[in-house]
């Protein structure tokens, strides 16, 4: 019996608490009855019950692809999950420009780049380019932002040098390729370069990419991390509010819209 306040949840298949999960995976053996049993055993070993191997297909001569349904007895207490979510209303395009004009009084300078060997500019382009992403304008469109998209494969030292030269208020580092954790090594190296140049702590350092989250960015020494689904306006709001905090115009503890926590 759950204590008061607890909220026990399990996966929902077609009725509450049935714990139904779908899995798919490949085993490196030819399709056979033995292979199917191996798949079922593998799923049972993970703690599932009522294992149903729904599909077993010859993906290649010596590989079999499985789709499996099974039940899990596991649960989580939803009341104990602690993930702060932003509740303050995000400023729109015009309001944010007005805020910069009134409170900063000059253009906010932002540099963005895919650094190291990364050549995938899709993310940084979506955030910075005029066009933006999903109907949300990119930073280049904001009259009170001066946004520079340095493109792909920018060396970390070059990015730091440009940040110094342009008196940047924020630097956006985009990392898409994550094979062998190359994004983490590269991101750490950027932070080292920023420290060497004496930039660290003087401007906002943002990390973005499909496999990036706020927690990872903080671990790597960035001020904030933005993952998949981030809109340019999220980044724009974050940059402006963190600049205002640095300028002492907003309390440092204030949480603002678009701000990862």
């Amino acid at each position, binding site marked *: 019996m759950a204590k008061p306040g607890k909220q026990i949840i399990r996966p929902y298949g077609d009725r509450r608490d049935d714990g139904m999960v779908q899995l798919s*995976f*490949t085993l490196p053996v030819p399709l056979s009855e033995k292979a199917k049993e191996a798949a079922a055993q593998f799923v049972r070993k993970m703690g599932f019950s009522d294992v149903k191997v729904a599909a077993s297909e010859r993906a*290649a001569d010596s*590989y079999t692809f499985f789709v499996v349904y099974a039940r899990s007895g596991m649960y989580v207490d939803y009341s104990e999950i602690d993930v702060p979510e932003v509740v303050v209303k995000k400023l729109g395009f015009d309001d944010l420009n007005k805020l910069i004009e009134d409170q900063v009084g000059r253009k906010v300078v932002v540099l963005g780049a895919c650094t190291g060997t990364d050549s995938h*500019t899709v993310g940084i*382009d979506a955030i910075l380019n005029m066009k933006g992403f999903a109907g949300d304008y990119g930073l280049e469109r904001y009259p009170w932002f001066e946004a520079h998209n340095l493109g*792909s494969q920018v060396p970390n030292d070059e990015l730091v040098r440009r940040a110094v030269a342009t008196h940047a208020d924020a630097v956006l580092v985009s990392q898409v390729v994550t094979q062998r954790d190359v994004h983490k090594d590269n991101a750490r190296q950027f932070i080292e370069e920023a420290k060497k140049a004496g930039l660290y702590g003087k401007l906002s350092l943002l990390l973005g990419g499909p496999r990036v989250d706020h927690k990872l960015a903080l671990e790597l020494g960035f001020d904030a991390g933005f993952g998949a689904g981030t809109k340019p306006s999220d980044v724009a709001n974050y940059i402006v509010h963190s600049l205002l905090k640095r300028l002492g115009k907003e309390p440092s503890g204030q949480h603002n819209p678009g701000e990862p926590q």
Partner: protein
Amino acid sequence: MPGPFIDDAQIDRARTLAREITDPVFELIRRNTTVSTERTVLRLFGISGAGPRGVPLANLMADRLLAAGALGRGAAYWYGRVLRLGAKSPLDAVERLTSVPAEKLALLPPNEEAQLRDDVRAEARAAVGELKRRIAERDALKAELGLPPPPHKYVIVATGNIYDDVDQARAAAQAGADIIAVIRSTAQSLLDYVPHGATTEGYGGTYATQENFRIMREALDDESRKLGRYVQLTNYSSGLCMAEIAFCAAYERLDMLLNDAMYGILFRDINLRRTFIDQYFSRRICALAGIIINTGEDNYITTADAFDAAHTVIASQFINEAFAKRAGLKDAQLGIGHSYEIDPARPETLLLELSQAMLVRRCFPNAPLKYMPPTKHKETDIFFSHAYDVMADLVAVWTRQGIQLLGMMTEAMHTPLLADRYVALKAASYVHRAARGIDSEFTVREDGKIAERARFVFGNALKLLEECRADGMVAAIGKGRFGDVKRSETGGKGLDGVVEKAADYFNPFLEILEAQS
């Protein structure tokens, strides 16, 4: 095929404009050469090894000539000179050349010069003969085993390790893949050399090396014989080593290459002159080797919006075709690129995508065409993602695409799992089987949305071509007309590898290749 949509005269007009736009670029190509073009010449002579610390011999030699200010006469000329010095092997030739002081590189007496050129020409003819023999071997196997009807299903392997790639490629072939692409290691396009030997470490892909090409083609030959159908192999002739990769691919019997006249300029920030010069020689090699090129217009609409920028794809395709034809490529070798990339949140995207694909088919009736799957608006909901890819399968068969890169349901997440390829191949085989013939069963109304959209897009493409002709190719790229990317003639990487040809420039391979068509 549904609908003409566009008058023949209008299409002829686009083709004429593209020729006029590209003509002035050939003046640049005629007057200059590049380090990578000259390295290709050396590789054609058989200098494919590597020296100390793995540096390719072709690089050691070309760099030496560049430093001595001697590259403008052509690497073939200097290759002839070192042979006359009595070089016993390519490595010996490189050592002799790199140890000769610059002043010793002066001209020989005229009769010796003429003799040298004759000797080198004879050797070049023999090298081309050997290349043709290898290509004939590939063509014989292809003819013996046969190809299934198009669209040919194209999938990517990208493990970083050529031996793991072989396992994945064999598995994909067994699951129904017709074409295997080995994606390159991230940023290889910016390396000004082709790495040497078999490689097992790469990021986001596997290094394109001649040895890796050999290993993969050999495995696919074996797999093709087992399956009783020929499985094609492709790689990437782009970046700073376009022509060298084209040579390695031709020599190792590859079937296709990604090769675009402008991609490097726009998406890798490689210098414009360098790219135009390199693409020409690379395409001359592809023409000889019967390699099908795949152009990269699909990339434009990953940066620009696919709905708004649809006309830039069409305009660029005509330009790519004009460059290709001047390099001797035939229609059957033009895998003109385009893709299914319109934001799926819009209404009527199936009609819009059909319109665009039908328009490309209408403009290039005899080219195989290369159709790319959605990527930009891909979601991590793999079930939606799979449905989205299946729509592209339908458009591919409906519009008679020759080559279809299959979308992966995990596109937005990671390099494809073995099962992702299997699922994509199974679905594409089903859709192609189910809908074959749909193109001749349905007539598309000339007064409907599909035709109207095609006419609108084509009209804008014509306007863009007119503008490019008025401004010139270089200015058009400078204004960001393609893919929303702006590049200048002297910006980007690799300009220092562009060299003006001397009056007595010598390249016997270019002579042979240009005489072929």
